[in-house]
């Protein structure tokens, strides 16, 4: 039953994974093997840009899992992304070693600048890659678990939940802006040199990060797809459509919400961890409430409750953003707003909805 739902009912997903695989193979070839003066050369700048957008796509899948399937409109999901990013950023900071401006082998530059004498306790362990990876998963996961435990147990839902998720990310932003927090204040963490001993400036490192992002996106998609096609996924849809009815059947709505929300936060954290080495900086701006709202716009434009639609929406919106911010910098935000209004009014299923209708009509 599951296997049939998992693959056979998912033509869009097979297409999505196929295209992703093609990109993951072609892009490294076009970047590394095709000479730079050839028309087919894929520049390292473009590789990094696409890699960054792939992490956005993973974040969008995470948001779609809770919004599209469970009806939880989280307006703070970018906070989990940023936390995963900070965990990775802390590892990258420790990797700088004595190559910083102040040359202190133990303390990152901003701590020397603040006259700190020793490393704060919460930076311990981040010189080890495995520890950082563990934190990438644990920090967003535990925060989401505690937050969800409190929110879902007291049956906070709908607009109220959206508001407190927004407050969560805003509170984190204010906290991370403070220098005393020990995360670099408003400059955040930057000036990264290398990861696992490989220089972040090398094309090959960039390609590896790019492929890792594509792989994480594919695995994140498959895991989410497995959840939504399992009976747990059916229960999620049931809760989304008729929460109190599901309770009367005997579902522990708060537990289901809690675990799916936590899983989604972990996915977001992983996306953030892949984002940071590619863009080379993480600062409190990533916690900005606007980011979380933009994320919801990607999902809405791509198509709710499709997963691959959310990923497609993230790529589409961000590519048009990089095009429009260069071509028409003043109107970009208006374009985004108009797009969101049009989509919610006329395309409740997003662009995937149009494609499906075309497919059914033909």
């Amino acid at each position: 039953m599951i296997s049939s739902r998992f693959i056979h009912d998912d033509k869009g997903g097979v297409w999505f994974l196929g295209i992703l695989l093609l990109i993951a193979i072609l892009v490294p070839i076009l970047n590394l093997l095709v000479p730079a003066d050839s028309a087919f050369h894929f520049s390292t700048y473009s590789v990094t840009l696409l890699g960054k957008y792939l992490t956005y796509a993973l974040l969008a899948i995470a948001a779609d899992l809770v919004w599209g399937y469970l009806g939880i409109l989280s307006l703070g999901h970018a906070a989990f992304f940023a936390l995963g990013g900070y965990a990775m950023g802390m590892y990258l900071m420790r990797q700088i070693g004595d190559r910083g401006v102040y040359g202190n082998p133990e303390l990152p530059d901003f701590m020397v600048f603040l006259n700190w004498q020793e490393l704060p306790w919460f930076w311990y362990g981040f010189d080890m890659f495995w520890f950082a990876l563990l934190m990438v998963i644990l920090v967003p996961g535990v925060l989401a678990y505690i937050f969800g435990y409190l929110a879902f147990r007291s049956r906070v839902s709908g607009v109220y939940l959206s508001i407190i998720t927004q407050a969560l990310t805003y509170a984190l932003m204010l906290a991370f802006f403070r220098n005393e927090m020990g995360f670099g204040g408003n400059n955040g963490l930057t000036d990264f040199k290398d990861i696992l001993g490989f220089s972040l400036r090398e094309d090959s490192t960039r390609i590896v990060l790019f492929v890792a992002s594509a792989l994480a996106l594919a695995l994140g998609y498959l895991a989410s797809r497995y959840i939504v096609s399992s009976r747990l996924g059916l229960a999620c849809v049931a809760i989304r459509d008729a929460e109190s009815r599901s309770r009367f059947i005997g579902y522990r709505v708060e537990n289901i919400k809690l675990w799916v929300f936590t899983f989604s936060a972990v996915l977001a954290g992983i996306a953030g961890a892949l984002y940071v080495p590619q863009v080379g900086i993480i600062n409190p701006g990533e916690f900005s409430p606007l980011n979380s709202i933009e994320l919801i716009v990607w999902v809405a434009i791509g198509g709710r409750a499709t997963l691959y639609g959310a990923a497609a929406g993230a790529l589409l919106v961000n590519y048009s953003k990089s095009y429009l911010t260069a071509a028409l910098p003043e109107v970009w935000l208006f374009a985004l707003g108009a797009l969101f209004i049009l989509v919610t009014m006329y395309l409740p299923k997003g662009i995937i909805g149009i494609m499906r209708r075309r497919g059914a009509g033909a």
Partner: protein
Amino acid sequence: MTWADALNSFRQRDRVFEFLIPEQPPALDLSHNIVLYMEGVSKSFDGFKAINDLNLYIEAGELRCIIGPNGAGKSTMMDIITGRTRPDTGQVWFGQQLNLLEMDEPQIAEAGIGRKFQKPTVFESLTVVQNLELAMAQDRRVWPLLCARLSGEQQDHIDEVLTIVNLGELRHDPAGKLSHGQKQWLEIGMLLMQKPSLLLVDEPVAGMTHQEMERTAELLTSLAGERSVVVVEHDMDFVRSIARTVTVLHQGSVLSEGKMEQVQNDPAVIEVYLGEG
């Protein structure tokens, strides 16, 4: 427990960790042949007494009809039994052992009380079969749900229920596309999947055609016996066609109880309810 034992118990992944196993409530005890006791139950909302010293006993295997004018407290009574509302005073027991006032909605559902709402609420974006699959009696914790697969036996049970409620041909249609009467049946089917010992059915024939109504009467009569069925209904023809024992509620308490003819001839009942029509 030694460390080695503790470690071993963590490695035995064919079993659930012990601390995760919820306390098992006692099983339903029907030794006195009564499935539901409501004694001295009262509930008021902002001073309005929705339920006033209500005493009601439902026998095992019984088909009971509850009638009463609007505001008689029928829905509040259902809410109290299913744990949605807590009464101000009184006792509600399921069998001899289970105190329903100490349980929440999922626990009560798990213990074997199924409820069909007045307005059919099925999961509209899921198919008929998926609706039944979700309603099936099963382990509803998160991890088991994630790994759940339909066994042959469960598939048979679903097929059987589909036949009973006459939705076999529509099994892969989204529930939102069903007609009103079909949704009512699907909901009864979902109740059956839970294998409840007590079925609470709120206005099952509202908005049904005559033919659908007959079929529903047949269905409910066939369900009693193995389990107890409590039907709240306005439609007197329908009540007459299925009723064995009728309880009349009025202003939150029992006005009259007995066979249909007895109740119909009770002057008090005629005054408050039947007399109107």
